[in-house]
């Protein structure tokens, strides 16, 4: 893949990292429209040490709505990533947790109540 073409796909890893944060560590709470966490440590954003190996697979498909058939490749990846993580947890422990982020204490509680 040429250098120029590669640039159009660089957002896809961002979505995976965001999805992992969304499902496992971030807790962006808001009250009456105001965002509550004031610092990053109150809403755990993932750092370089938290990323697994990511193998992006580009699916080239025509989008009837996008300009010239174009589709977004960045943050949209976050949505199925979070769902995949939640499904993986269900596969592992046999309990569905539908409240994000899925933190160790929620898993512990779900296992106890099983």
């Amino acid at each position, binding site marked *: 893949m040429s*250098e120029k073409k590669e640039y159009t796909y660089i957002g896809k890893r961002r979505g995976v990292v965001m999805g992992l944060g969304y499902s496992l560590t971030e807790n962006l709470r808001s009250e009456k429209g105001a965002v509550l966490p004031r610092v990053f*440590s109150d809403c755990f*954003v993932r*750092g*370089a040490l938290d*990323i697994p190996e*990511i193998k992006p697979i580009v699916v080239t498909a025509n989008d009837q709505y996008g300009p010239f058939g174009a589709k977004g490749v960045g943050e949209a990846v976050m949505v199925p990533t979070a769902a995949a993580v939640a499904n993986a947890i269900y596969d592992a422990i046999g309990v569905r947790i539908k409240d994000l982020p899925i933190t160790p204490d929620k898993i512990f509680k779900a296992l106890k109540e099983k």
Partner: protein
Amino acid sequence: MSKQIVKFIANGRTYETAIEPQMTLLEVIRDELDLTGTKCGCGVGECGACTVLVDGRPTLSCCTLAMSVKEKNITTIEGLADGANLHPVQKAFVKYGAVQCGYCTPGFILMTKALLDENPDPTEEDVKEALAGNLCRCTGYVKIVEAVLAASEMMQKGGEN
């Protein structure tokens, strides 16, 4: 608090400016020295966007009182390129697509320079550990790590691609 005239050395150039004792290094760099490449991401030392080098050591400028580094050698992102000639780390970041919005980039690049000055041949784990204190929301870190490893290879070969 009353202002004092203090001498700062940034990127090899001497500045004399009147500052108040409670000012952070970040405020002085951006507002007094007009070096706005260094960014404020969180203001509380959690994101690494404000990283500069003080006597070669990476420092969170938002958590450093400016007076504490007077007359020390400060390196900001503006100090890396040699005119239009980018530093190998900068070249690698551009080549490998490690820059998206660019806000975290100065911090990452200076942290990388500090890493490679100390460890010219880091492993991927070494790189991730060194950059653990720099947060990025745009890239997902993968390209940044690739760029750093490529930069270390470039710099070891003694040339630039």
